């Protein structure tokens, strides 16, 4: 597949001092669904607005379908945006809102109307064509904003936190709907969000941003299972971090001392003996081991401090022998089955497979 949009070494500096976006390069393939993920202030929205043409980079280049559009105004770019507040024109009907972009292209009124009807069918709201935006619910407005943006059949559709204004249930439903929409229309989607679930559920590829830079760029599975930095490991899902020291290396695995015991981790790359590092373990990869049994893999010992019930499962806080705490997530059937074992105050053994232990540089 060919890349539809390329950002080359983009920098955005405000007032000569504050760096919003710092040497970001990325390339998005035609038809891809890419999400820029990060906390507020990480530069993801600025990046999106630069692609849309609402802001200009201080340095760098934006290439859209082979054409340099870095300094082109928004109305000359073949991209459309779904705004966070939807930005529907309050004085126009839904139909007029959707036709607006087509009218600006110079299409005759009869044609714009039929295309608007088509777009409304696509988002499942054909009966709303003559209503005003204020008569619609939040979710409906969101769909209208989407219809208005895709009716122009842009090369790239930009979505700025499109679901943030919706309540939790609707958001979950719209996540799936947006994903289906992407598959149906085949337009490249670039979305900005601070919600990691949204990013994982919807995207082909997620670009995690930190302080104006790209922290990691990969598929949702890559990011979740192989985070490259503690920042990514913590931003996507939850991770237990334990300070560790390298004891020995053996082929593809390394033995470290952490949590008051020896832990084997499967890692590549060089790690000198005695090096202080950190290991990261996902809460759901930790399991309660049968007492007494010492199977293959690693075992951590500790005492149960707290149990948090969250419907789908149970999160257990375990204080390890040397003092630090780890979180253990179990799905509820399992947690229920083990109600005899994990009682607050009781001693437990946790097991973790070596390939589920991640190794990171020490905190400095």
């Amino acid at each position, binding site marked *: 597949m060919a890349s539809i949009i390329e950002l080359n070494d983009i920098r955005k500096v405000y007032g000569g001092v504050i760096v919003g976006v710092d040497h970001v390069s990325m390339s998005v393939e035609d038809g891809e669904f890419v999400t820029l993920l990060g906390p507020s202030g990480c530069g993801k929205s600025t990046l999106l607005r630069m692609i849309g043409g609402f802001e200009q980079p201080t340095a760098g280049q934006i290439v859209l379908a082979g054409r340099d559009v870095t300094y082109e105004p928004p109305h000359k770019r073949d991209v459309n945006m779904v705004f966070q*507040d939807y930005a529907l024109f309050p004085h126009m009907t839904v139909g007029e809102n959707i036709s607006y972009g087509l009218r600006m292209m110079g299409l005759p009124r009869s044609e714009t109307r039929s295309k608007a009807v088509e777009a409304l069918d696509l988002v499942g709201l054909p009966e709303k064509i003559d209503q005003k935006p204020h008569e619609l619910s939040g979710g409906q407005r969101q769909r209208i904003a989407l219809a208005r943006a895709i009716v122009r059949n842009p090369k790239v559709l930009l979505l700025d936190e499109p679901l943030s204004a919706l309540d939790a249930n609707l958001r979950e439903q719209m996540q799936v709907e947006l994903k289906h929409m992407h598959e149906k229309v085949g337009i490249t989607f670039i979305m900005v969000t601070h919600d990691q679930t949204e990013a994982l559920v919807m995207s082909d590829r997620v670009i995690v941003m930190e302080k104006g830079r790209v922290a990691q760029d990969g598929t949702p599975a890559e990011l979740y299972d192989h985070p490259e930095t503690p920042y990514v490991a913590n931003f996507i899902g939850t991770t237990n971090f334990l300070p560790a020291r390298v004891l020995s290396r053996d082929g593809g695995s390394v033995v470290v001392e952490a949590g008051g015991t020896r832990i084997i981790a499967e890692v590549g790359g060089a790690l000198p003996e005695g090096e202080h590092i950190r290991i990261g373990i996902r809460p759901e990869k930790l399991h309660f081991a049968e007492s007494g049994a010492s199977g293959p893999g690693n075992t951590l010992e500790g005492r149960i401090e707290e149990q948090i019930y969250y419907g789908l499962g149970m999160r257990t806080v375990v204080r390890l022998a040397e003092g630090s705490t780890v979180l253990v997530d179990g799905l509820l059937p399992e947690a229920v089955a083990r109600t005899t074992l994990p009682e607050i105050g009781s001693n437990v053994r946790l097991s973790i497979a070596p390939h589920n232990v991640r190794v990171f540089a020490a905190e400095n």
Partner: protein
Amino acid sequence: MSTASTDTAMISTVSRARKPGLVSRYAADMAFMAFVALLMAFLYVPIWVLIIFSFNDSRTLTWPLSGFTLDWYGTLFSNQDLLAAIGNSFYVATSATILTLIVGIPAAMAINKFQFPGKALFRRLILLPITLPGIVTGISMLNMFRLFGFNLSLETVILGHATALLSVVVTQVYSRLQRLPRSLDEASADLGAKGWQTFLYVTLPNLKTAIIGAALLSFVLSFDEIPVTFFLTGRENTLPMYIYSTMRRGVTPEINAVGTLIVLASLVLIVISVIMSREANRSRQSL
């Protein structure tokens, strides 16, 4: 423990207060109504006096009324000076309103849209005339026109009014612009609209009611303006100036008739502006 005791204390006060509460509340309501009635009388009795005497068939404004007549409206329409003054007032108010809109709308948009050095100062300078007494605006503009060798005429009055009213238009339009999300402009540009198209199809329709409101207000303020007009007019006179000059010979029933007509016209304008602002409120819910 302590919350429970305060709760019971509250409940007992409520039940104890219920019976005398009703009576005292009734009394308070009555007192309030009386106050409102008094206030309304203070505001509107003079206007009713004016209207009633415009239909009274006596030349002198004395009680009791002697009989009903429409003669004063008849003489009003045969008084050439008065008609000319009304015509002049319409000419001045309309022109001043249009002029102030032409200058004020772009000024408000500039204040809203652009960041430039001295912006706060620019805003204050535009808003200043609203706090300046008309007499100051009048004298200073008179000096200026003299300096540049302008002859005083209705046109100089128009310039004076437009200056004094600019702040009205800018304030109204600017406050509406501030409530409009910036994303509307961006969405319009994103959908392929050039700057002027965004202004014409998105900004202006959303400013419509604010502009109409400002225009109505400007028109009315200009229509009954005296201080600025006093200094800047030439040989021709506007209606308030004419009324003022004839008043020196005492209030005539014609003046009452003119006053009644003005009240009627104001009423129509008020109704229009109320309907307009109600529409604006309704569409603003969507923002």
